[in-house]
């Protein structure tokens, strides 16, 4: 390690919270905006220390902090990052300045509250990814609901209140049983420590119930088909920056939950329910893509494409092999970048035309070439074009899925074709052909300006970096993933050994001896 900074993760997690406090105290909308932006930028820069000080090849948790939080129940304030969570933290700190900058340009209504909520949300999201204690995880997981609820409800579209309430109640109800499951797990193992839980043995009945309860919470959050119905409402109604964060980061809390908790902590139950989850994931891929194909509103198209993309991530996680899991982690980041960028592009267009209906557009190539070109890159990244980020993740996931159960890989591959179809259809309707609506011509529609480019370009650069040099990322991801899978395999083996009757065990040992 180059240099070690004490409390680095605490600083990264709570810098935005401190920023939120300052933002509410400072007078003047302009000052509030720039302070919020500065906070997210500083947070991002500080979080880069995680990358620069990363101990390559080390599989365990890094930058660990561990303090007793509530002694009677052994609840700890324990933070750490490993290859599984590193890039999710960086994704969050990277997307936040973009989302906040967008808001600086386009949000005028109750700026102070808006910025404070964005910053609170950032603290909650980072907290989820760095928490090593189950209760701490849950606290961050649930706390993220409150700012998002207000962001959708106050700054959203026409139907925002309905969408906000649906978002809150759906996810809150989804995680209600998880509280009980957390307690059952605790009283069965005696710890809330997530890493210790991954190594713990639990009775199959406990595993089954707890797995189902955890899965319900995460499936709603992800969202996994058929728990996705809150998502299109929330996305379409949310303000653009809210959509970027919702799609970019918030949904990953669900898949991250599966990856960090549900799958490795309850390995036997996860084995049993794996095919079911994989089936739901594949249904999500195909269903999301087909529904996206039907959408007339670009934003709901992107929202449904999220359902499909998260299906890939889930598929890789369920496969629980090195390719599947590593691919999923990278794909979480990819989806965050690509879909975040898509929402950003849609938002930029909406600010100009105040509509998102595909029919309203056409011929944008001619009038706004820079915008259209970038849109094409973003769409291709989302569709998984080789050379861009989406391809690497999806391809690795397919490999994992194939090794798990080939049929799922085959079906998922069909989803890739559908993705290209709906994205290119949308692009054709928007960009190609004649300008049919005078509002779309060069005189009325302005191309991207410097500030807007400053938001889009970093994303596009990352598309290429990940697409061309995936090993920069896999090198940091893989050791932790392999270690996690080894632990899981050992626990599974041990569990099967215990269940195998003694005489069979003797036979096995005899054959092995030969």
């Amino acid at each position, binding site marked *: 390690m180059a240099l070690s900074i004490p409390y680095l993760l605490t600083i990264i997690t709570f810098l935005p919270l401190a920023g939120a406090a300052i933002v509410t105290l400072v007078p003047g909308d302009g000052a509030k905006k720039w302070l919020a932006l500065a906070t997210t930028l500083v947070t991002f820069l500080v979080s880069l220390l995680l990358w620069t000080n990363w101990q390559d090849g080390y599989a365990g948790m890094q930058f660990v902090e561990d303090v007793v*939080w509530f002694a009677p*129940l052994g609840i700890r304030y324990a933070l750490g990052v490993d290859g599984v969570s590193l890039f999710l933290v960086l994704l969050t700190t990277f997307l936040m300045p973009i989302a906040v900058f967008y808001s600086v340009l386009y949000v005028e209504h109750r700026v102070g509250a808006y910025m404070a909520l964005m910053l609170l949300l950032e603290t909650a999201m980072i907290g989820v990814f760095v928490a090593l204690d189950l209760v701490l995880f849950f606290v961050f997981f649930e706390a993220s609901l409150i700012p998002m609820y*207000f962001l959708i409800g106050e700054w959203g579209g026409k139907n925002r209140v309905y969408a906000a309430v649906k978002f809150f109640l759906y996810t809150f109800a989804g995680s209600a049983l998880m*509280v009980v499951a957390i307690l059952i797990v605790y009283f069965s193992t005696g710890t809330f420590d997530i890493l210790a839980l991954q190594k713990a043995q639990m009775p199959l009945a406990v595993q089954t119930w707890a797995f189902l309860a955890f899965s319900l919470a995460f499936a709603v959050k992800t969202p996994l088909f058929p728990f996705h119905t809150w998502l299109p409402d929330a996305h379409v109604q949310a303000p653009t920056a809210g959509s970027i964060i919702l799609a970019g980061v918030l949904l990953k809390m669900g898949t991250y939950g599966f990856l960090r908790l549900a799958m490795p902590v309850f390995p036997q139950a996860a084995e049993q329910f794996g095919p079911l989850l994989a089936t739901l994931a594949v249904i999500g891929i195909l269903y999301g893509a087909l529904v996206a194909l039907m959408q007339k509103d670009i934003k709901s198209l992107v929202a449904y494409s999220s359902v499909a993309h998260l299906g890939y991530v889930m598929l890789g996680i369920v496969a629980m092999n090195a390719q599947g899991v590593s691919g999923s982690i990278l794909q979480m980041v990819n989806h965050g970048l690509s879909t975040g960028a898509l929402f950003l592009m849609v938002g930029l267009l909406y600010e100009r035309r105040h509509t998102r209906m595909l029919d309203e557009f056409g011929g944008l190539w001619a009038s706004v070439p820079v915008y259209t070109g970038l849109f094409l890159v973003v769409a291709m990244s989302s569709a998984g074009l080789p050379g861009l980020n989406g391809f690497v993740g999806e391809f690795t996931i397919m490999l994992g899925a194939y090794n798990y159960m080939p049929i799922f890989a085959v079906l998922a591959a069909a989803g890739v074709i559908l993705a290209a179809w709906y994205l290119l259809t949308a692009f054709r309707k928007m960009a190609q052909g004649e300008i049919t609506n005078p509002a779309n011509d060069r005189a009325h529609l302005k191309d991207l300006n410097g500030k807007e480019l400053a938001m889009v370009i970093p994303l596009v650069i990352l598309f290429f970096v990940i697409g061309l040099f995936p090993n920069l990322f896999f090198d940091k991801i893989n050791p932790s993933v392999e270690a996690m899978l080894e632990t899981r395999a050992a626990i599974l083996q041990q569990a099967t050994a215990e269940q195998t009757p003694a005489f069979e065990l003797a036979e096995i040992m005899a054959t092995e001896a030969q």
Partner: protein
Amino acid sequence: MNSADLQLNLHPVLPELLMVATAAVVMILDMFNRKGKAPTRALLPWVALVGVLVTAAASIWLIGQPVSSFQGMAINDARAQALNLVVLAGAALTVLLSIRYIPNVNRQTGEYYALILLVSTGMMAMGSATDLMALFLALETFSLGLYILAGLNRTDRRSNEAAMKYFLLGAFASAFFVYGAAYVYGATGSTRFDLIANALFDGQADPSLLAIGVTLLIAGFGFKVSLVPFHMWTPDVYQGSPTPVTAFMSVGTKAAAFAAFYRLFAFALPSEQATWGPVLGALAILTMTLGNLAALRQSSLKRLLAYSSIAHAGYILVGLATATSAGIDGALFYLISYAFMNMGAFAVIILLERQGEMDALGNRLNGLARRHPQVAMLMSIFMFSLAGVPPFAGFFGKFFVFAAAVSGGYSWLAAVAMLNSAIGAYYYLRIVVNMYFAEPTEETRIEPQQASIPLAFALGVSAVFTVALGVLPSLWTNLVQSGALNLVAMR
């Protein structure tokens, strides 16, 4: 009986004595006020407040010195002190809420503060009683005071109705309680908890007499904490009583009755746990489900909080159904959290009431955030906390209580309770929706006669503790630690 039993040990009842003394001072000071010359009346709430705070300090000082006194009729262990602190927190906040409010409702300010102090004394005594007779005495002390407080607004029909209903049903409840106590005495030959437990242990008790007795005692307590099906009075009484009284009632009565409930089951009937645990569990489910479902349909804020308080009684009962020390400590944490978040919510209702009104409809909150952003933010904190969303106190209240349930083998109960709290989230969220996403109306304006500095202070204190206990639950548990708040030991 040896000589030690005869000695009258006043040291453990110091908190109660301080409260009674303060009440006496308040009443005497009020006497000098008759001709309206000296402004002593304005001093009364502050005298009461100082008394409450001194008592709280005494309670904290007494933690870790558990002594049984009055020949085993009362014990002042750490849990009794913890209960004292819950009641005193409620009383202190109530005094702050009353300073502007009560003079509008009733001119007799002196008796009001004296009654608050005496009612608190009765509630505190409930938590330390270890004898059915002492328990009954405490029960009646606080109940009688509350009947008067409920009817404080003598010119208001609703307030009269509330007082009358509360008195009649309360009298029934007391009768049930006494009748039950008599049966238990008949079955076991004693009213003292330890002797009852001994009799049960020796197998000398008549099981059918005991069963009748315990059933009646549960009914009596059930009325006080408004368990379903003994909850009918709650919405009417909550709505009709002056709002600070309602707030105090919702917090103090619940705390006192639950503390006594726990003492009875843990000290007198430990051997009966297997029989009564499931019964209490079933009552808990009925209570929370009915409370939540009824709360969904309320338009009056006080009725909404009344049904919500019924639901919360159900959650707390989950902790008691297990009859473990983890359960009671969880319930105590729940009660202190509830004290702050619920008092805070009532403080906001007081702000919204017009001159002479004693309730506000939910739509009066419409657009509150536009007009009074700070108030709306605090109310949101209370609502999210009541819903059980982290990082607020209400979350850990539920977490600890349900932890006790799971460790005591009542996972199903915890699961039903959590699903219930998801229902509850709906109506708490509706209040937030009204405040933030609805258009403000003329009604939304806060009347200056209600917005006083003490009330603002009470709101702030409630909010600070609602957040602080949610972020650092050990603040409370360390304070009452000698009560062996040790959930781990229960594993």
